[in-house]
C-alpha cells in the first residue's frame, strides 16, 4: 500500500479549507460587524478564516486540475512503518507523562526505545533513562528553578 502525493495534497488543502470555515464560523458568534468603538471582536478572524477557506479550496481545485493523474508517491509502506515506530512511542510518552510526570515519562520512554528499537541490554537502557531524568532534574529544577511536571513517584520521594 502506498499513499500518493496528489491524494495527500488534496486532503491537506481540504483540511486547511475546513479550518478556515471553522475559524470564520467561530468568529460569526462574536459579531463580525462594527460597533461604536470600531470593528467587533470577530471582524479580523472572520475575514482571515474566510480567506483561508477560499485559499484552501482554491488550492484543492488547482491540485485536481493541474496535477491530475500524477503518480508521485507520498509515503511508501517501509517509510510509514518507520514513522509509526517513532511516532507511537512518542504518543505513549505524552500519555504516560500526564499520569506519572515528565521525569518518569522521559526515563521510561528512553528506556523503551533504547531497549526495543536500539537493541541495547535492558539494564544499560534503564541506566540511560534514569540518568537522563536525573540530568533533566538537575538542569531544570535545581539550576534554573523551572519545575517540571511531577507525578506520584516524586510525591512518594517527597521531591517538590
Amino acid at each position, binding site marked *: 500500500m502506498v499513499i500518493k*502525493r496528489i491524494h*495527500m495534497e488534496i486532503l*491537506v*488543502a481540504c483540511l*486547511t479549507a475546513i*479550518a*478556515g470555515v471553522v*475559524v470564520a464560523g*467561530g*468568529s460569526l458568534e*462574536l459579531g463580525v460587524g*462594527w460597533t461604536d*468603538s*470600531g*470593528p*467587533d*471582536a*470577530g471582524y*479580523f*478572524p472572520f475575514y*482571515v*478564516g474566510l*480567506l*483561508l477557506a477560499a*485559499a*484552501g479550496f*482554491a*488550492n484543492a481545485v488547482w491540485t485536481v486540475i493541474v496535477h491530475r493523474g500524477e503518480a508521485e508517491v507520498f*509515503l511508501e509502506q517501509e*517509510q510509514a512503518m*518507520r*514513522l509509526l515506530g*517513532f*511516532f507511537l*512511542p*512518542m*504518543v505513549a*510518552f*505524552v500519555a504516560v*507523562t*500526564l499520569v506519572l510526570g*515528565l521525569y518518569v515519562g*522521559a526515563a521510561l*520512554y*528512553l528506556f523503551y*526505545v*533504547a531497549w526495543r*528499537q*536500539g*537493541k*541495547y541490554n535492558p539494564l544499560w537502557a534503564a541506566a*540511560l533513562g534514569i540518568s*537522563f531524568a536525573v540530568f*533533566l532534574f538537575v538542569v*531544570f529544577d535545581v539550576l534554573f*528553578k*523551572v*519545575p*517540571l*511536571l511531577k507525578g506520584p513517584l516524586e510525591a512518594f520521594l517527597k521531591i517538590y
Partner: protein
Amino acid sequence: MGNFGLLMEGFQVAITPMHIGIMVVGVMLGLIVGVLPGLGAPNGVSLLIPLTFTMDPVSAIILLASMYWGALFGGSTTSILFNIPGEPSSVATTFDGYPMAQKGQTTRALTLAFMSAGIGALVGVVVITLLSTWAAEFALRFGAPEYFSVYFLAFCAFIGMGSSAPLKTIISLLVGLALSTVGMDTITGTLRLTFGVNELMGGVSFLVVVIGLFGIGELLMTVQDGLRFRGVTSRIDLRDVFRTIAELPRYWATLLRSSAIGTWMGITPGGPTAASFMSYGVARQWSRPGEPFGKGRPEGIVAPETADHSAGTCAMLPMLALGVPSSATAAVMMGGLMIWGLTPGPMLFATKPDFVWGLIASMYISNIVAVVLVMATVPMFAALLRIPFAIIGPVIVAICFVGAYTVSSATFDLWLVLLFGVIGYLFSKLNYPLAPLVLAMVLGHKAENAFHQSMILSDGSLGVFWSNPLVGSIMTLALILVLVPQLSRLVSKFRSRGTLRSAQ
C-alpha cells in the same frame, strides 16, 4: 558619528566577563542544536526562552542571539561532514561542501565555510550599525496605517519572494494569523475561538507551535527516510586552516556579491534560506570558468555561507527597528522580547539604547567567538551525530516536550506539540513554507491592532491605506511584490505556448 559613539557604549555593555561567558554558552548550545537533526535555530531559541524569563533582557538577548549564530555554524558543519543540512539555510552548502570533504579536504571545506560565514556576518553587523538609527528614525514617523502596511509588506514579500507555491504560502500565513487570534482578545476583552476549551483561553503560544512544527515535524521528516550518517573524517589540521585563510582573498568578488545578496534578503523578508540558494545560483552563473560546481568548487561553499550569515544577521535590523522580523528565528526572538516586556520598534532605540547597542556590539564579538569556538570544537560536535538514533532521537523528543512544558507549565501544550508536529511534517512534506506561519503568529496581534486603529481612524474605509504618500507607496510596493512574479510567470507560460504553436 552618533552611531559610532553608541556602538562604543554598546561594547561597554557587551564586553563583561559575564556576557562573554554567556556568548560562549550560547554559541555552544547553538552548535548542538545546529548539529542535531530536529533541533534547528528557531526551535532551539524557543526551547531556551522560558529559561530566560528571570534573566536581565540584555543578557537574555545576547544568549539567544549567540545561540542563533552557533546554530548557523552548526548547520554548515553537518552539511559538509555528513551531507545532512542541520538547518534549511545550509542546504546549498552541501552541494559543494560535501564533495570537497569527500576528496579529503575536510579542513579546507570547513575553514572556507566558517571564514566566509564570519565575514558575511560581520558585513551584516556593519550594515546594522550604519542603518539602525536611520531606520528607527524613519519608523518614528509611522502611525497605525503605516505599521499595518509594513506588516502587509512582510506578508506579501513572503508570498512573492518565497520559493514555495504562492497559494501554499498564503495558506501558511493565514493559518498563523488565525492561530494568533485564539484566546482573550486584548482590545475587546472577549474570548475568541476557544470553542469551549478552557485550555485555549490563554491563546496558543507560538513557542509551542515552533517546537512542534520545527522540532517534532523535522524529526519525523528525518525518521521517514531512515538515517544514513556517512560522515567523513572530521579532524582539523591547523596548517590547512592557515593555508585556506590565505586562499580566501582570491574569492573577494564572490564574498562581496554574496554579502550584498545576503544583506538585501535579510532586510527584506527573503530570509537566509532564499539568500543562500540565490547566492549559490548567482555564483554559479558569474564565476570564471574552472572546476565545475557541485564537485567541490570553493566558490560553491563561500557563496551560500556568506549570504546565509549576512542574511541571518541582517534579519535583526527590521526586527529591532520596525518590529517586523524577516526570518523564523528572528520572529521567535521578537516574541521573546515581547515576553520580557520590551516592545520592538523605533521606541526601543530611544528608551533602551543600552539594550539595542549592547546587542549590536555583542554581535561583533559573538561572531568572532563563534568562528574560534567552532573551529576548536568541530570534532567533538561531529561525534554527536555518531550517537545511534535510538538514543539521540528520544533525547531530542524529550527535550522538545520538556521545553514546551516550561513555556507555561500546561500539560495541554504537550498535545499541541504532537498536533503541530504532525502538521509540520505534512506541511514540509508537501512544500508548505513554515516560516510565514511563525511570522504571522508573532505579528498577528500587532497587525490586527494596527488594522483596528486604522479602521477606526478612517471609519472603516480601506482608503486610509493610500491616504498619504508613505503608506500608499508601502502598500503599492507590497501589491507589486505579490503580483509581479505571478504575472511574469503567466507571461512566460504564454510565450512558451506561443513558441510551441509557431513551431508546429
